[in-house]
């Protein structure tokens, strides 16, 4: 076969698959979002954006991402560096740290609910220590900070490992001679990290951040389990439009808004962490 055509033939099946199960539904959603009974219109967008819960859910989603993601980056970097320094037991630790990856987000939310619940672990502990006289409802509308904290903790616990795995692989790709050269030329351990590891880790950081940020804008189940309706987020609103209010057009518009935000952040991350031509390992 003509070698110039061959690559296209080889990717044909997956292209067809993606068109059928991704592109086509996507077009349908877009169509739904941009139309009402009268034809093309932006009414659906206007409706969801003007709803009083929209600004608060947008703000909550962004706040949560802003609080959780940078912390996760730092934590994942720290953990990845530690794992890479280990000689023995490295794989063991890595497996243990990545266990949360195997747990669904709803299950993770429920686990943390069991901790923060009125009859939960935290309450019994504080009660046992005599900090409180009787169990209190930590996750109530009187404690918005506590709700936020619980959700953030659950997210950090659940989704740091995905970054960790990517960063561990990335650090493993950096040849150790660069560290030796840096050491000989006077770089302290901190300088070796900031001047060698971080810049050479840019491609992995890019991947990890893009993945993580997209997931952060899609947060839903953990919030549903821990905050219920106390803490509205974009994805929760989308769900509500679709299944509680039976308003498919509005749900589709919400979905597109989330997609736009995700694409926007992805572009920013790709741009901020790009590697100049000729400067990769």
């Amino acid at each position, binding site marked *: 076969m003509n070698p110039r055509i061959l690559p296209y033939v080889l990717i044909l099946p997956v292209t067809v698959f993606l068109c059928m199960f991704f592109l086509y539904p996507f077009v349908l959603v877009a169509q739904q979002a941009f139309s009402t009974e009268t034809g093309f219109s932006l009414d659906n967008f206007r409706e969801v954006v003007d709803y009083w819960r929209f600004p608060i859910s947008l703000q909550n989603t962004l706040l949560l991402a802003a609080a959780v993601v940078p912390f996760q980056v730092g934590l994942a970097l720290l953990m990845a560096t530690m794992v890479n320094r280990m000689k023995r037991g490295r794989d063991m630790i890595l497996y243990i740290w990545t266990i949360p990856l195997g747990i669904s987000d709803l299950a993770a939310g429920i686990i943390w609910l069991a901790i923060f619940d009125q009859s939960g672990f935290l309450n019994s502990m504080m009660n046992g220590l005599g900090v409180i006289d009787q169990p209190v409802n930590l996750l109530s509308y009187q404690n918005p900070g506590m709700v936020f904290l619980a959700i953030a903790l659950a997210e950090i616990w659940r989704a740091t490992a995905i970054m960790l795995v990517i960063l561990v692989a990335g650090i493993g790709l950096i040849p150790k*001679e660069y560290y*030796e*050269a*840096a050491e000989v*030329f*006077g770089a302290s351990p901190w300088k070796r990290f900031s001047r060698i590891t971080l810049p050479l880790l840019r491609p992995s950081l890019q991947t990890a951040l893009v993945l993580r940020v997209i997931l952060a804008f899609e947060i839903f189940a953990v919030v549903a389990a821990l905050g219920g309706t106390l803490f509205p987020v974009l994805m929760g609103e989308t769900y509500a439009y679709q299944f509680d209010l039976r308003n498919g057009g509005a749900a589709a518009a919400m979905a597109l808004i989330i997609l736009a935000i995700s694409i926007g952040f992805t572009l920013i991350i790709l741009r901020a962490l790009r590697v100049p031509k*000729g*400067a*990769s390992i």
Partner: protein
Amino acid sequence: MAEIQIKNVAKSFGAYQALNDINLTIADQEFMVLLGASGCGKSTLLRIIAGLETATSGEVWIGGRRIDHLSPKDRGIAMVFQNYAVFPHLTVFENIGFGLRMQKLPNDEVTRRVERVAGLMHIEMLLKRYSGELSGGQRQRVAVARALAMEPDVILMDEPLSNLDALLRMEMRAELKGVLAESKTTAIYVTHDQVEAMSMADRISVMHEGNIVQAASPIEVYRNPAAEFVASFIGNPPMNFLPANPQGGGKWSVAGQTWDGPATEKPLLQFAIRPEDMMQTEEGLTAIAKVVEPLGAHILVTCDVAGSQFRVILDSEMSVRPGQKLTLSPQPGRARWFDPETTLAVA
């Protein structure tokens, strides 16, 4: 003052003994070349001096100070790595200036030094590039420039010119030697190219299987190899060997000829001679020419002497044909003798 003393240094990787009891003193401002075959432990010794590898036992002193417990940056050294280790994410300029930045030198000083060493290594036009945009030889010169820019007391170079073409390498050798002499730097230079070793070294340390077999001036190493290994390693082609049997009174019989040799009681010696130290005589060894290779001014003749291979270099004026019979004798004072038991030279 940066005299380097290596005292009883040994290194093993698990069960494998990479270095056995190395003792070596390198004088202040000396240019010492470590010469040896691949895998003999040259890089390992250099890395121990640099502090990138910990010796299993022994001590390293620089300038009268014991330094083997210090971290690399506190040893007053700079190093050129065998695989360059030019940082891919920094431009050539920032690579060369890396050590200076770590010392927090002011910007104009960094620029001044970087531009000076870049000029020396002929890479001033590459300063803005990344290492991915350089050839192997260019990268290697960046690595050398980075070490020179530090203006260190001691510079350790692991095959720093191995990737340059012959012409550029010759030029760089002279340049590097000049720069280091001028800056009064003590240098340890690893190579497995003996021409490079001969032309650059104040002294050569010949390494073999984790030992330093001989450390002496290039001419001494060439003329008076301390051991059979050195004799068979140095020189292109290296020395010829023939077994010698004692005839009593310092006379030795070599392939049917009786020559004066050392007055020892050994039952057997190895006679050794450089190919260019044989001359055609009326009487002498009978050699049958096998292959004749013209070298320009000389011809290299590979012969058969009493069943073993024997190479001689003769003037190209002489016409020698394969199959021809030659009679050869050593030039006076050029024969060397080795004890096959210890492999060491016998005087």
